[in-house]
């Protein structure tokens, strides 16, 4: 598969069916998990609960935060001060690693990358897409962001300032996109439906209201 579409990163393996031989690293994962449970580093229940928590995270939580920020200026101010605290007001546990909101505005566009690895606000918007972890995105987003955005179908006016934020293990970013024109009559649920994962990374704009 990887050869067939001609790029240089390996794709994570697809789920094994029951009788497929496990890979070396899959065996390593199961062995490490088993040893850590046996040694009491964490319990099997804690591992199960964490797996469920990972599955429960999706861009929908981030979209709720963005939609509330669009609808409520005071909340928006709190998001810009402290995303994790603002998310917790909506019952969302965004974890303890600080997330900083970077707001788009007329003439200003923000883009998030992690050049060194793959830091991403996982506890707010779920696991990152493959391209976010790719060599191409990590290398080029900081050097030619406009060209990268063009590949995503986002053509920015030359006078628009582009700010690229390089994430770290200790600080993650969330783009607060501009509220789309024509969305004045929408309630928060309808607003949240306009907020995609990519517009919270900065590679897209929110959907246009129907």
């Amino acid at each position: 598969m990887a050869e067939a579409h001609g790029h240089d990163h390996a794709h994570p393996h697809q789920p094994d069916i029951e009788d497929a031989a496990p890979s070396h690293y899959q065996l390593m994962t199961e062995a490490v998990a088993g040893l850590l449970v046996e040694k009491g580093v964490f319990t099997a229940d804690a591992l199960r609960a964490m797996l469920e928590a990972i599955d429960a995270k999706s861009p929908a939580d981030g979209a709720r935060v963005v939609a509330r920020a669009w609808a409520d200026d005071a909340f928006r101010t709190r998001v810009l001060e402290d995303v994790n605290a603002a998310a917790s007001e909506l019952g969302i546990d965004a974890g303890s690693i600080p997330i900083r909101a970077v707001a788009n505005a007329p003439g200003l566009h923000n883009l998030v990358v992690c050049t060194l690895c793959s830091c991403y606000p996982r506890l707010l918007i779920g696991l990152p897409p493959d391209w976010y972890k790719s060599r191409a995105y990590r290398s080029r987003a900081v050097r030619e962001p406009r060209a990268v955005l063009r590949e995503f179908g986002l053509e920015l006016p030359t006078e628009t300032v582009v700010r690229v934020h390089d994430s770290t293990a200790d600080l993650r970013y969330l783009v607060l996109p501009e509220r789309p024109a024509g969305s004045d009559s929408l309630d928060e649920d309808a607003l949240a439906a306009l907020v995609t994962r990519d517009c919270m990374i900065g590679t897209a704009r929110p959907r246009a209201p129907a």
Partner: protein
Amino acid sequence: MRHLRRHHDMGGLDAGPVDHDHGGALAHDYAPWEKKVDAILRLLSSSGVMTVDELRRGIEELGPGIYDELSYYERWIASVTNILLEKGVIETDELGRRMAEIEAGWGHTP
């Protein structure tokens, strides 16, 4: 002073087009074992056994050859395992034994 760039430090380098997934149409699901790697790291991190910075250091120490050869979560579990071995949380021989046992029993679990 010449900046010595290590292989993971790719910001600003030339690279091909971004193979983005057109809004998720081509996105694959993470395999269960990949999510387990993520869960292990989060539990180790929240219990103070290892940090995310140590995960990254472990990935960087895999070296350019292995770094490019392994998939994303393969790098993670290789790093986590090396750091657990380094800290003495687990030992090489018990890890090897456990992997052999799991492999021998694969497909026979009730």
